[in-house]
């Protein structure tokens, strides 16, 4: 079977970002704690591929460290969403039409109805800015996405004969959800997870940009963008580098998500022939 083009392109971009983040754990081209003020605002050169920022730090090294933050925050936020949302959705589907279903889904609607940035500001205002609070703020808004998705997919599965057979075998709805439903909706969760992951990267950048995400000295793409905005006319590369990185990463993750859906969705498989 031929892999869809979007999967390859998205996979390569995501792979590069992931490798950069992993690499920065042990090595970066320059140490960003050493401020080489003599070099500040140098445009890209052979020594500094993406140039130097206003503190004299190597921008490529900063981006690599920032990838760590972005990936960690987005991944944990998706984790929060899946870990809380999928069980809620499965529970709602198991009690379809019942009180639990109604409560869970209306609770979801409530979360959906809140503007996410306002809540994020609220959380950071109460608990103080930081990466952990950003994860919680983004994670909360992932919960209803996964709850709805799992409930919808689970509802169609509950009508299938093999679920009927499992009920005839005396299995509780909890066990049926765990053994039969979850494995069959996993592909949907993976695809949605990839897409939520890219939204998480974007949200982290946005929160850091307004100063509510990761705090210095932790490197963050959004922070770099915020720091660079006054220098746009003076040294555009300082703003362009993190900006383009965010765009490319989100694009890559979205393509990966689309590609995975094409690969995993049997209906689209049939259409591809």
């Amino acid at each position, binding site marked *: 079977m031929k892999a869809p083009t979007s999967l390859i392109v998205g996979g390569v971009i995501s792979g590069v970002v992931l490798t950069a983040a992993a690499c920065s754990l042990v090595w970066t081209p320059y140490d960003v704690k050493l401020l080489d003020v003599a070099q500040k605002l140098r445009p890209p050169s052979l020594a500094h591929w993406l140039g130097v920022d206003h503190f004299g730090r190597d921008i490529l090294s900063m981006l690599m460290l920032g990838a760590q933050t972005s990936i960690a925050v987005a991944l944990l936020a998706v984790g929060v969403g899946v870990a809380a949302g999928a069980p809620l959705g499965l529970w709602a589907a198991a009690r379809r039409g019942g009180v639990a279903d109604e409560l869970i889904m209306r609770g979801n609607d409530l979360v959906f109805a809140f503007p996410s940035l306002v809540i994020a500001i609220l959380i950071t205002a109460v608990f103080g800015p930081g990466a952990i609070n950003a994860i919680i703020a983004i994670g909360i808004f992932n919960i209803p996405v996964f709850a709805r998705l799992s409930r919808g997919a689970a509802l169609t599965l509950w009508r299938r004969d*093999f679920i009927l057979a499992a009920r005839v075998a005396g299995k*509780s709805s909890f066990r049926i959800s765990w053994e039969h439903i979850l494995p069959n909706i996993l592909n949907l969760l993976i695809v949605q997870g990839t897409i939520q992951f890219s939204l998480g990267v974007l949200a982290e950048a946005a929160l850091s940009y307004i100063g509510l995400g990761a705090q210095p000295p932790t490197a963050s793409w959004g922070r770099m963008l915020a720091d660079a905005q006054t220098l746009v006319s003076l040294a555009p590369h300082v703003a362009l580098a993190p900006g383009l990185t965010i765009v490319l990463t989100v694009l890559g993750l979205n393509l990966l998500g689309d590609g995975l859906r094409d690969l995993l969705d049997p209906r689209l498989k049939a259409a591809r022939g």
Partner: protein
Amino acid sequence: MTLLTVEKLCVSIGGASILDQVSFDVAPGEILGLIGESGSGKSVTALSIMGLPPQGAKTKGSIKLAGEDILTARERRLCQLRGQAMGMVFQEPMTALNPLLPIGAQVAETILVHERVSKAEALERASQTLARVGLPPATFPLSRYPHELSGGQRQRVGIAIAIAMRPKLLIADEPTTALDVTTQAQVLDLLKGLVDELQMGMVMITHDLAVISTMAKRLAVMQSGRIVETAATEELLRKRRHPYSEALFAASTHKVELPPPPAAQRTLLEARDVLCAYPLPRQGMLTPRRALRAVDGVTFTLARGERLGLVGESGCGKSTLSRALLGLEPLQSGSIMLNGAPVRPNAADTQWRRTIQAVFQDPYGGFNPRWRVRSLISEPFHLLEEPPSGAAREDAVVDALTAVGLCAADADKYIHEFSGGQRQRIAIARALIIQPELILFDEAVSALDVSVRAQILDLLAELCRKRALSYLFISHDLAVVRSVTDRVMVMQAGKIVEQGATEQVFSAPQHECTRNLLASAPKLQIKNSAFQ
């Protein structure tokens, strides 16, 4: 003069041959029956005639409709021909109609596409067409929506759409497969009348020999993309030249030999005044909710070793009753006792569940696609307090698989590696594995091809010979129920209207409903087989 000539039609997708040298012709006013089992290429043939071969398919040969080649015609010309010169009736009346449009508009649409007429005129002609197919505007106004009609009425609308432009050719792809026997008889009559009246040529595609033998003058038998035999129906009923046609006819009239029922034994299942009702939507704000009594006061018993049948039209409450017997449906009143224990919809209550297992209709949706056969068929072990483990469990799996005619190596496969018939065998293995006292077959062979169905029914008879098997066999197919049960119950509108020994009920039906069912069921009468 012939109307449709298909000559050496070959269709292939990605190198795989779907149709191979298919040739036949249809004269005006003639009904040609295209018969064969699933996957034999019947539907691809029909769609190719409509100029709608599957995407990416390569076609060879020729399809000539009144001298015009469909395969080489441009899409614009084909759009003119479809609906105007040829119409098509589909199998599933549920999905063939647009649920958002009233029936009048759907029939008028065909007319508006092909002729420059005013909307009012198109609607007027639509109402005439609907009246012709048995939906007079007085009782079925044009403003009705598909969901307000029954399956048979929807299929009539589908036929009205197909014949609105009085096409020369009508293609009917399994037009009555989704319908009840009584409705089926009416729709078949309608189609036959229309062919006579409009002098249309008709290609009727079906897997049901009994249905087609009453309709078509000529039959073409298809097997894996080839037409293996074409002959007049009369002739084919007398003598079949190709072994596949012979096998198909033999399977259609297959009789299983059940061992004699054991002497009267103690009662295994007892249902008393079972009532299952669903609340209907309120008519007004303050009117009390009315309830649909899906199962309305059903009382019967099933003795150990007995093979009981349950027949009735769709919507009569068969499925609800079967779900109630499995403890999946709460009872409003009445009681069901299984082996002396009350059946209740409580999953934790495994005592009585151990005595009953079920085989469901759909061989494709009946298994978790991500489990291996071993886990699938050993799922009912969940009901045992001490399920066998290790070698004992493996032995039980192998025993169950061999009992249904599969082999031990199949335990490691996934369900998609099996055909429909094999899947139904696996479903039976799953029901047998904990050796329940009662098995419930809910339309267990309805989705299978005739030859596979014959094998499964034989398997059932064999199992009856080997072990004391009691079962309740629920089906809408009278012939099947007749061959595999000792006693039968007839259900209508939630009530059991007649019950008795199978042969007696079928040969001397007492109730109106039973008589209707029997009279409508198409019968295949093979006159004299060369092989018998």
